[in-house]
């Protein structure tokens, strides 16, 4: 028994254990997603977050200890963001063709996401760092982390908000757009990518290839737009 405790106390503080468990939790989440027939609300990231959080709380492990192992995965967000240049380049001809409606939808969709999230949060009594963490919540998380840090939000809270936003977007987008009568798949996909980043994009690809491609563009463009606008927005209203 003491041996097991010794092994545990060694492993629980080493990066190896938490890195391995992060990958394992993700594989379980991915398996559940596939088993459900790729339903948007069975989100692999959300499942991994719940599994790992529960594990940390029950074993009384601090997030700092966990992150020492998980940082190796976290680090890859940087090069992954750079890699988003590739889908941007591949769809360049289509981007140019619908440049005007896309630009308008980007500005409106991006601003509405930022302003309405902050306004609703403020109306419900949120203030300070927590409210600031809401500002970049529509943007893909590697970028949202950077924006949140720049404007003085809590980057870890922002990531959680980003992921939940993505799941909400993926669940509501099809019934919502049917309800308001937008049938053009470019418009449907693009707006979903702007409002719900990668998770919304994954959902759009399930529905239609064109919707998916435009969602990817929406995600990338809103990452750039929000990075530029969020600091100005915060200076004006905070």
């Amino acid at each position, binding site marked *: 028994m003491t041996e097991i405790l010794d092994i545990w106390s060694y492993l629980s503080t080493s990066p190896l254990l938490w890195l391995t468990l992060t990958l394992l939790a993700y594989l379980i989440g991915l398996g559940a997603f596939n088993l459900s027939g790729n339903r948007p609300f069975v989100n692999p990231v959300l499942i991994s977050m719940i599994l790992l959080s529960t594990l940390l709380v029950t074993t009384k492990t601090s997030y700092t200890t966990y992150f020492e192992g998980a940082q190796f995965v976290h680090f890859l967000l940087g090069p992954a963001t750079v890699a988003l*240049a590739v889908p941007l380049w591949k769809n360049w001809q289509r981007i140019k063709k619908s440049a005007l*409606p896309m630009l308008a939808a980007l500005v409106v969709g991006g601003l509405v*996401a930022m302003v309405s999230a902050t306004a609703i*949060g403020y109306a419900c009594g949120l203030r300070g760092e927590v409210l600031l963490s809401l500002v970049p919540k529509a943007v893909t998380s*590697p970028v949202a982390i950077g924006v949140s840090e720049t404007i003085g939000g809590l980057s870890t809270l922002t990531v959680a908000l980003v992921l939940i936003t993505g799941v909400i977007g993926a669940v509501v987008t099809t019934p919502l757009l049917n309800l*308001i009568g937008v*049938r053009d798949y470019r418009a449907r996909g*693009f707006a979903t990518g702007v409002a719900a980043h990668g998770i919304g994009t994954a959902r759009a690809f399930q529905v239609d290839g064109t919707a998916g491609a435009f969602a990817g563009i929406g995600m990338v463009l809103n990452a750039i737009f929000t990075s530029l606008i969020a600091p100005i927005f915060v200076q004006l209203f905070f």
Partner: protein
Amino acid sequence: MILHFGILLGFQLVGEILARSFSLPLPGPVIGMVLLAILLLTRPRVGPAIEKTASGLLSHLSLLFVPAGVGIVQYLDQMSTIGLPLAAALVGSTVLSIAAGALTFKFVNQARGYKDERQND
């Protein structure tokens, strides 16, 4: 593979250096992405080489969110007070943003005299 990964890291590094030295509001990786996109558009031959590594990385994009997402454990005891307002803000703003963005795209496209690309669902 190593070379292509090195290229991505190199662009991120240049992005970080530019962001810090000019105190730009953009995160370093975003600047790196823009620079790489410019390179790909002006020198398309680079594209196919880097494409495989890039899409490999992007196909596991959601895994990369997990470590930061688990950070929510630090806010668990605050969730009783901030949980509901945050949920209201997220649901409300996501619905509004999708609707506003899609309608804007549709109306601007029609105002230019173009038809919707697909009418059926």
